[in-house]
């Protein structure tokens, strides 16, 4: 106790101790400030990275789980429409619900919208073309989902 009091008096009495004390305080303050900044920056960067990577994995997983099959294409001839109708039957054979976004016939978009097909279910989409399908003609049909998967194939119209 006696020694501590003596030290304190010595510190007050000393002419050269102020700079050392300030230096120590400054160093500690800088370490704390820089460390806090680094921590905040690291947390932000890692959070952003984690968010982006999480979104990528999530999106890719959703896309990967999609599987669909065009079971049947029926070239229908509705009265008065002069062979402008096609009905396609699509089955969801994946592990995720699919949303049909567009249907293309011979690389021309003929249907757009959102049609949800649950896992294991089959649905049909009726198309109305702007021009008649040719009798016996080979037709290229592709079906695109909202997540970006495309199923395509060739079907022949009746003659």
């Amino acid at each position, binding site marked *: 106790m006696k020694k501590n009091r003596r030290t304190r008096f010595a510190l007050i009495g000393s002419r050269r101790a102020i700079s050392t004390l300030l230096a120590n305080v400054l160093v500690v303050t800088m370490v*704390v400030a820089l460390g806090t900044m680094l921590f905040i920056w690291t*947390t932000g960067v890692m959070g952003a990275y984690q968010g982006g990577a999480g979104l990528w994995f999530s999106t890719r997983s959703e896309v990967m*789980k999609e*599987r669909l099959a065009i*079971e049947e294409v029926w070239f229908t001839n509705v009265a008065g429409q002069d062979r402008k109708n096609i009905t396609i039957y699509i089955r969801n054979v994946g*592990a995720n619900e699919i949303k049909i976004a567009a249907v293309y016939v011979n690389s021309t978009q003929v249907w757009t919208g959102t049609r949800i097909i649950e896992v294991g279910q089959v649905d049909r989409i009726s198309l109305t073309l702007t021009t008649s399908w040719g009798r016996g*003609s080979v037709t290229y049909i592709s079906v695109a989902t909202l997540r970006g998967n495309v199923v395509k194939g060739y079907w022949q119209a009746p003659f």
Partner: protein
Amino acid sequence: MFKHFAMRRKGVGTVLGAGYFIIIMLAVFNLIMWEVNQYDAYRQLVDQMNQVDQERISENLEFVYPVIIDREDLGSGKYSFNLTVRNIGGITINTARLYFYNCSSNALKIIEKSITGVDYFTNGFINPGETNHKIGVVSTLDMNKVPADGSRPFIIYLATERGRTFSSVYPITIPKWGGNPGFIDIGPLRFKFDYYSLNYTTPSKTVPTPAWIVSPYASGTSIMFFVTVINTASDDDIKLKRYCVFDCIELAQSGASGKIASFYIVDKDSTWPGASTMFPYDEVNDPYILPRNPDPNNPQGGIANIIKFGAASWGTAEVKCLYTGGGGYAQYEYLILMGFYYVYQGHDYGATIPFVAIRTNTPT
């Protein structure tokens, strides 16, 4: 210890820096572990879906001749029959749906999996190795009438739960002879040779009908012929030229006149020989393109195309009749030769096809 620490003039910054360093390292390590975990979950999903794809391509199924057996009339307009199939793949097939497409009426009948009602099927699980599996079908389709009413065949599609589709025509008309008599192959062209592959239409018979015996055929009746052709080449499409011709060489039973009626190719939208139903062939803007064979393993050799003949001269819609000498319903025989002129790999080719022999109005 505390006293010793408190008395030290250095070390506080180091301790704090070390603390921050450890915290940041732990955060980075945590991020890496999260990333590994996510990637592992994603890889598991990819493997799982690859397994699904592999199972799908392992499915393989054949329809067994004569495809439909055990037909019964159940009354009330319902009929039952068995569809015979064989599973030649490596995995059990679960039938999801059946489609019966009537080529004559363009009607589509959908048969669902069920055990009661109408238009349903049972016994849709087909184990690997089963060679004569019977899928029981109850439907309003009267398969007894095929093809007794003269209608063209059905195409039966079997859709599986994994998304594959297998199909067969019914009745199967390609004879089970030796060799390959179901086709005539010349160059890259393959001409289908079965009961339904050669058809005709006239102004009074507007639905394509097998042309082996054209009856009744009145002299002076314009006629169109339909031929099924496949491009077996897998390296290029084939474009047909307007010179393609279907020649009918007349043979009268009382003495061959040898006159030749030449029917030139017409537009693919033509249906029967009439002013607004038969169109000239435009080889520049709307030619017949026989698509290349997309699958070398396809036993048919490619995609079937219907080529139509009916014009009296190149690139016109002028109708043409068979030579029958006198009037009325004369009985004649015709030998058919076809000339096919086409462009393949940028070069012009031509081939004479010894095709078929048909007749008109013969009693048998």
